[in-house]
């Protein structure tokens, strides 16, 4: 399967990574190369095979449904590029 420039542009947008128009052909070529490499998987007969989930079957642990952590808003915000009045700040989202 080869990726054309329109698909590369769409994937970049889905991944929320800005890619300049002039860089799209190179990106499409790189992605196509990697996908061609993956095509080998089509040779394998996977009928009736369950996807692998863990090394040894493990039941997920349960715990009491109780608050065990939290209450440190300042720490949560301490690394934010823009925090104001106890909130993360972002560009205007709604008009």
């Amino acid at each position: 399967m080869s990726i054309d420039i329109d698909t590369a542009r769409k994937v970049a947008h889905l991944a929320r990574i800005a890619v300049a128009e002039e860089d799209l052909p190179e990106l499409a070529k790189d992605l196509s190369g990697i996908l061609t490499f993956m095509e080998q998987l089509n040779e394998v007969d996977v009928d009736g095979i369950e996807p692998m989930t863990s090394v040894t079957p493990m039941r997920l642990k349960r715990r009491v449904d109780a608050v065990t952590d939290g209450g440190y808003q300042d720490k949560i915000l301490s690394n934010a590029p823009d925090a104001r009045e106890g909130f993360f700040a972002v560009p205007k989202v709604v008009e």
Partner: protein
Amino acid sequence: MSLNTLTISAARDALRAGETTSVALTEACLSAIEGAGVLNAFVHKTPEIALDQARAADARIKAGDAPAMCGIPLGIKDLFCTKGVASQAASNILEGFKPEYESTVTQNLWDAGAVMLGKLSMDEFAMGSSNETACYGPVVNPWKVDDVQRTPGGSSGGSAAAVAADLCLAATGTDTGGSIRQPAAFTGIVGIKPTYGRVSRWGVVAFASSLDQAGPMTKSVRDAAIMLGTMCSHDPKDSTSADIPVPDFEAALTGDIRGKKIGIPKEYRMDGMPAEIEKLWAEGTAMLKDAGAEIVDISLPHTKYALPAYYVVAPAEASSNLARYDGVRYGHRAKLGKGDGITEMYEKTRAEGFGPEVQRRVMIGTYVLSAGFYDAYYNRARKVRALIKRDFDQAFAAGIDAILTPATPSSAFGLGEMAEADPVEMYLNDVFTVTVNLAGLPGISVPVGLDSKGLPLGLQLIGRPWEEGDLLNHAYVLEKAAGFAAKPSKWW
């Protein structure tokens, strides 16, 4: 002999005997680090923290309360979150990030009295095999045999270079497709990736969550056993962490593997494999046979599909994990133009913050997970993964105790040598190691010899799940038989 060249076990014994102090060990390492700037291994140094921890360790040793790792100076891969200390995953997108919390693995080490010298470079978000994708610039392999500067491998390249150059006694690494074992082999040290779930992933920056596992990178197999024991624990904060007891790995090093069955998988004999690698593998096989093990030819028929399966599963998980870098909660945010909204903020931030290889993998992952392709790529790869694991299960069910393979397809290559190569060519570095991550098994790289240029080569042993002790014992026998004692000559 300077103190920074000691192994963990030698330092532990000297500390307990009162022959040296943690402060002296730490100072020796700090001065070695100061003199090794050209290697570019340590990227965030923490001498004040180190000396405080060393003084505390000395007090503990004096009081007779000294776990094995007490007072041992370590380097920490930049992927581990360390409280109040830059933890950047070698990415510009985490520039300035100082976690408010400590990863479980590093906390376990500090609780045992270990000392943090600083943070070590790596490939950005652990994506790479040469340490050239780091935002700090490449790390240089201390092994230098001509005028070429070589890669220490990746992604734990800073850890490997620092241990090989005696800048620390040992280091933490992480391994998603071979990122502990390949750099260990390239630098002549020992590196073990434990069974998936042995070590908590909490506080380790996530790359591909179903494959990531931390482990020690050390100067000897005994050191790997000691340090791994301290890193392991059941952790309620990681739902995939195994709730099983952690045995005394060092006690498993009996040096006796008589009657054990060693599998030699025919599929690892790749077309075009260099004669030197083939020869090393045969020598390693002979060493284990001489030690009384039985050598058995085995088949792992799905081996050739491991790399393509890995390069679906890992980027898919990465695209999901790296969605959190959005310029809102931590790290870099792009400067916005007039009229830019939140979508432009995401797109510009991620374009500026992620390097080319990370962008490529996030986009591949996005593509294989997108509507219409999920079954064709991602689910198919997960099924192939189940078949790869079944190959190993069948070998172990037939009585195989450990599997011996080469660790890497070559010795360390020159920095920049792969710059023009197709991304897929770089991925081939993981060809012998990636099966182990997909199957969740423990694997260890042991230095066994030098190639004709004088560069180190390693072999890999693969063990049964949860039997790191037995695996380490096999590695211990191989290490003793190989008698690898070469060190890089100091040129830096």
